[in-house]
């Protein structure tokens, strides 16, 4: 592929690609990602829809938070089971609210650690209204108590989105 055909101007996601240079030699260039440049909005659109679908299913008591986060984070059952140190059979049970309710705090903490969320997020979802998303910020503060996170919320000083 020729350098001029591959190069994309997209600063948020840069990568190295190998191309044919003007002198016919092959070598690396740094370019933006073509798919992110063209289709990132579509990715976020689908992710938002998936999040809502899963949230509704969770609210209808059809799936547990374990299934919610696993699906959202695109983790395989075998991989997650191994990370949490439970069997795949047990993990599949934890997808159902009736088994999730019986999970111990230490096991829930393991799940929360793997999903990189506060333990409290296994029990509640906080949604910021679309129009306020750029303005509101959250600060999660760990405490010496593993089960307690203090969440500070307020108006962002710099109102620009940090997504890009």
């Amino acid at each position, binding site marked *: 592929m020729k350098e001029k055909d591959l190069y994309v101007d997209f600063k948020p996601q840069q990568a190295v690609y*190998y191309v044919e240079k003007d002198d016919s030699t092959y070598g*690396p260039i740094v370019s933006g990602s073509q*798919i992110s440049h063209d*289709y990132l909005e579509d990715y976020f659109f689908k992710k938002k829809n998936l999040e809502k679908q899963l949230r509704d299913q969770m609210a209808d008591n059809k799936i547990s938070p374990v299934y919610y986060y696993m699906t959202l984070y*695109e983790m395989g059952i075998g991989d997650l089971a*191994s990370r949490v140190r439970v069997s*795949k059979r047990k993990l599949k049970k934890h997808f159902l609210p009736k088994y999730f309710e019986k999970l111990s705090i230490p096991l829930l903490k393991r799940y929360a*650690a793997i999903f990189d969320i506060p333990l409290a997020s296994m029990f509640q979802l906080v949604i910021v209204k679309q129009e306020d998303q750029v303005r509101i910020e959250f600060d999660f503060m760990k405490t010496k108590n593993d089960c307690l996170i203090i969440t500070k919320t307020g108006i962002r000083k710099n109102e620009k989105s940090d997504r890009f």
Partner: protein
Amino acid sequence: MKKVIDFEHRMAAHCETGTLTALLNYNGLEITEPLVFGIANGIFFGYLESSNFPFPTFIVRSRPGQIRENISKRLNIKLEKYWFKDPEKGEAKLDELINKGIPAAIQVDFFYMSYMPEWLRVNINVHFINIIGKKDNKYIISDSYHPRISELDKDVMRKARWAGGYMAPKGFLYYPVDVPENVDFKQPVIKGIKRACRNMLSIPVPFIGIKGIYKFADKIKEWPSLVRDTEHLSHEIMKINILLEDQGTGGAGFRFMYATFLQQAAGILQNEKLDDMSKRMMEIGDKWREISYFAAKIGKNRDLGKEKLNELSLLIKERGDEEKEFFKDLRKTV
């Protein structure tokens, strides 16, 4: 602790070849990323269905760690390697190396690399980065995927190094201890090419090498039966583009990098035929990239009917046919 090693940070296409190339360059060996990739027979194909992945997937490079091992063996480079069960011991070793001014590569779960864009961060346990310093509680990182030197909190780094799961890093770190000053690349290049041909043509496993490309072409037609809905199918189809172009491949599923390797190999071996093979591989790469574009387009348009998937399947099969001939001919050139 405050120590930053004078280490030249450079982006590279792939994390494993990038970290290794940078460490070898730091230790005085002039070698390029494509040469590392080719000598280590990094080029590959495999179609995988496993509960470790959320969906069937494919790989376009050899098993993680294989590149490092092959380079060590073929170039006679001694690497010091450690795995740690105990995070404290693993951190102490890394700190000790930093104090001595020795940059080291570590294996991490990519999910925790918070300096990368959020849409890229997924749980993959086989990301490699170079650690080049520490300032208070932050490690200083040279990550081939990031344009600048980065930092990561010690606690986050611990999570990344001791994440469990499939191909868990287990605190793995390595660094070169004996790098020859002058290396004759001729035999290693020949070995790398021969082994790559063998991997692509002769491994008797139905989902590996050329057989893997054909398997992928067949199986993709069944994907609609594996998804939740159209948006899920669109996402998985568009991931073909990401896996081929954006997950540290240098474009076209490592085929562009391999073409570059063959061009460099032609110079090393003074073999004009390899130059022709290099051009052929670049053309094959262009056609893989057409698949990337096609997958992204039909995914975005939700144009995912049977007809389009058959078309995609046919394109993949054609790449299999071409690569079969290519690797047969490549085998004859060395």
